[in-house]
């Protein structure tokens, strides 16, 4: 049995920032199913929000209000306040660690506009901000290699819990296939999102709900899973991301008639309205037959920005367009469509990153979560662009601090190594032995398709019921699949099957919560209940596991400074 004071699962921004905090006093392990530098935080492009005021005067109060309005008033405002107040400090700290930022003419961190933010507050490093921060944090981990051990290419199967305490995780070394038990005084999840359940997504192949489902499987609830963000500018058909920075720098959205259609949907903010509004506007245009050439895409037009600005501020997305579809955005428009991008929901935590196990906020001891896999909730029903990198860094640090404070004063809990290992080995053996007639590829594709068409940008009761039935059918077929690789060494097929199992579970949770929420708020839009209904739905959804399937309870929203108001842009 391997022992570490603190075990962090996930090595993106939240996981690594967490490790840097916890390793100040404790022995820390970071577990990742890829390598730290391959984490999906690195794909974030446009920026990280903070009211530095380097370009225009700004304040945390404005950042707070923008975030809450952007989230359609479902955010927990006490958490939002602490989060936006911490923003400038954590960004200065990143800069001090060596993170590279684009600069203003007087050498300060440059800032630009982003959707839903009333001030230019996105600090950025060209159009690869996530990459810059990810590598800066990885550099710091390499510097602190004595107190942080990184387990590259290890897969986490399950949480080890004993009553109301978490004692470790069961993991596999992907390279050897060996199953190991990792005992810890504190476990932190920073496992990212689950956008792969949708057909069109910006997410990496690794974003498959492993963390959230491991929590759900030990009886913990998931909060607000119905709130999934569709990013307005995914590359047509592929879904990969073209940064919102393209619109922040002044890009236009055009429908098939060449019209800047955002005039109709958000006249004051135009292309820089929050993402849920822009994505719905795009989908409405497409559904009305006004896509480009009648297809399911609209145009992102950057031509008027000019070559110099594109090369300075958006070089990477220009290259993406050239490499992936042979379109140079200096001379031509990019075809885009809404793409599943970010999970506002996740493992419920309090504002100190302690995972909570019920709607009353009771803590699960020794278990913490931060970043996209967690739901604090600072984003409410819809996250503003550049707020996710900030969330990962602010709450990554907090999770590290909380885990440290918890683990310093406590001994290891009881772990029955043989029993924990046997449970996972049994599950693995079941998958290895599957020799049915179903194709996992078909099951995966059908899940992604039904989630996109029936639980996507626009939802209604009928579609969601069909979606849930389809998913239940897929879960049955999942048991009758076929595995061809029976080896232990670097068996990626086995992990893909496990990931698919997690995604099928998560998809059902998303659709079930979406069916229950009979209103439209933020990223969740019901065509049969097209307006926000504060009287009946100003609460968080808490989804619990039960033998009959997901059960949904309510958790109240923390409102301190801003009463819910009409949300127009």
């Amino acid at each position, binding site marked *: 049995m391997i022992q570490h004071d603190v075990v962090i699962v996930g090595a993106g921004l939240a996981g690594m920032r967490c490790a840097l905090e916890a390793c100040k006093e404790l022995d820390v392990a970071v577990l990742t199913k890829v390598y730290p530098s391959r984490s999906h935080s*690195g794909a974030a492009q446009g920026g990280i929000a903070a009211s530095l005021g380097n370009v225009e005067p700004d304040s945390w109060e404005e950042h707070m209000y923008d975030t809450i309005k952007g989230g359609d008033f479902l955010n927990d405002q006490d958490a939002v306040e602490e989060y936006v107040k911490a923003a400038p400090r954590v960004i200065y700290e990143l800069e*001090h660690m060596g993170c590279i930022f684009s*600069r203003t003419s*007087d050498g300060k961190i440059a800032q630009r506009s982003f959707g839903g933010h009333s001030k230019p507050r996105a600090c950025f490093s060209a159009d690869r901000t996530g*990459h810059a921060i990810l590598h800066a944090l990885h550099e710091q981990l*390499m510097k602190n290699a004595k107190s942080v051990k990184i387990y590259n290419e290890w897969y986490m199967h399950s949480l080890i819990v004993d009553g109301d305490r978490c004692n470790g995780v069961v993991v596999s070394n992907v390279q050897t296939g060996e199953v190991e038990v990792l005992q810890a005084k504190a476990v932190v999840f920073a496992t990212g999102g689950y956008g792969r359940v949708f057909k069109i997504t910006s997410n990496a192949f690794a974003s498959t709900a492993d963390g959230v489902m491991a929590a759900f499987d030990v009886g913990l609830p998931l909060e607000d899973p119905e709130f999934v963000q569709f990013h307005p500018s995914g590359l047509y058909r592929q879904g990969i991301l073209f940064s919102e920075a393209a619109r922040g720098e002044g890009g236009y959205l055009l429908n098939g008639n060449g019209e800047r259609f955002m005039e109709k949907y958000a006249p004051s903010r135009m292309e820089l309205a929050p993402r849920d509004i822009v994505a719905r506007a795009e989908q409405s245009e497409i559904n009305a037959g006004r896509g480009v050439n009648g297809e399911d895409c609209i145009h992102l037009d950057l031509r008027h920005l000019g070559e110099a600005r594109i090369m300075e501020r958006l070089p990477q997305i220009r290259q993406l367009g050239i490499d*992936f579809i042979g379109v140079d955005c200096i001379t031509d428009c990019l075809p885009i469509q809404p793409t599943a991008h970010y999970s506002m929901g996740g493992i419920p935590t309090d504002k100190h990153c302690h995972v909570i196990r019920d709607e009353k906020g009771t803590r699960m001891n020794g278990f913490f979560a931060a970043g996209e896999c967690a739901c604090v909730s600072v984003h409410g029903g819809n996250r503003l662009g550049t707020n996710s990198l900030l969330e990962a860094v602010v709450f990554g640090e907090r999770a590290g601090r909380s885990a440290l404070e918890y683990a310093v004063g406590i001994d290891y809990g009881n772990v029955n190594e043989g029993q924990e290992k046997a449970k996972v080995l049994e599950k693995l053996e079941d998958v290895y032995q599957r020799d049915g007639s179903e194709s996992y590829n078909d099951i995966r594709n059908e899940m992604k398709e039904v989630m996109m068409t029936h639980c996507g940008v626009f939802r209604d009761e009928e579609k969601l019921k069909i979606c849930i039935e389809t998913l239940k059918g897929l879960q049955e077929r999942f048991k009758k699949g076929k595995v*061809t690789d029976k080896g232990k*060494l670097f068996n990626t097929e086995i992990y893909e099957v496990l990931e698919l199992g997690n995604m099928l579970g998560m998809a059902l949770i998303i659709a079930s919560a979406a069916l229950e929420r009979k209103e439209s708020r933020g990223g969740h839009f019901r065509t049969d209940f097209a307006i926000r209904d504060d009287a009946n739905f100003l609460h968080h959804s808490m989804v619990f596991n039960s033998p009959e399937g997901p059960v949904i309870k309510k958790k109240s929203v923390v409102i301190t400074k801003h009463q819910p108001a009409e949300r127009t842009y």
Partner: protein
Amino acid sequence: MATFRIKRFNPEKQAEPYFEEFQLDIPSGATLLDCMNLIKWTLDGSFSYRMSCRSAICGSCAVKANGHALLACQRQAEHIVDNDETITLEPLGNMKPVKDLVVDFTPFWDKINKVKPYLEPGEAPPEKERRQSQEEFLLIDDSSTCIMCGACYSDCNVLEVDDNFLGPAALAKAQRFVGDSRDSQTLERVKELSEPGGIWDCTHCAECVERCPKPARPFDRIKEIMTVALEKGVHNNNGARHALSFFNSVKRSGNLNENRIPVESMGFFNIPGLLSLIPVGLRMFLKGKVPPIIHHSIDEVDDVKRIFKELDQ
């Protein structure tokens, strides 16, 4: 219908790798990675490789296609098929294969770690951000785009014969800090990077620039470190002496004094080094490869001197 000729290897099953062919209709607009996934998901689930982001930023899916390293997600498959409608896929070079297209990255990361890949600021930070001009940012912008995919490492010609060479990725990472106005260890860094295995062991083939899927272009970064090393007076090594001797010879005569360069590269007082040249010299003599004893300037040497003078200004 295209043929994917894939190098398969599973040490649990066979001792040696072998090639296996798969036939696939390349869907319109499919990347190479899309095709690899189709093969895995519809033809042979045991086909193993790394992948994650699909957008050329995570660096997982670097493989060799038709003999050269590239990112599978970044290329349209139909752009890679050769004249025989075939794409040959192999694991990256200069690293040990683990299974199929998966290789062991341990030596790659060990070398990244060797260059102290983190900022070493001299003094306590200010309350807010350190100031850095846009020009200073641009000095480290390119190297910061490295995604650690290993494509350069795979195809580096020096690494093929010299395991001790840090390699293009680690040296590009080193430039990220050598060039950073916020770092206090520039001199110490370039001294260490001038040791054997460092910048001067690069043979300037620029293969890494060809293979780099990002603007990191390692050889360009290596040249930048060389420039800083020479400017900082870190001359006490064969590589720097060789570069300076080369430079001075061209400046003086317009061509290379091939008798002088090896001696100057070793250093006049480096007796063991000079003695080590003798066997090479003898072999050259026996094969009739010794350059003329008396070194002549080229006819247009004045023009060369004028060029140097203008460059100086």
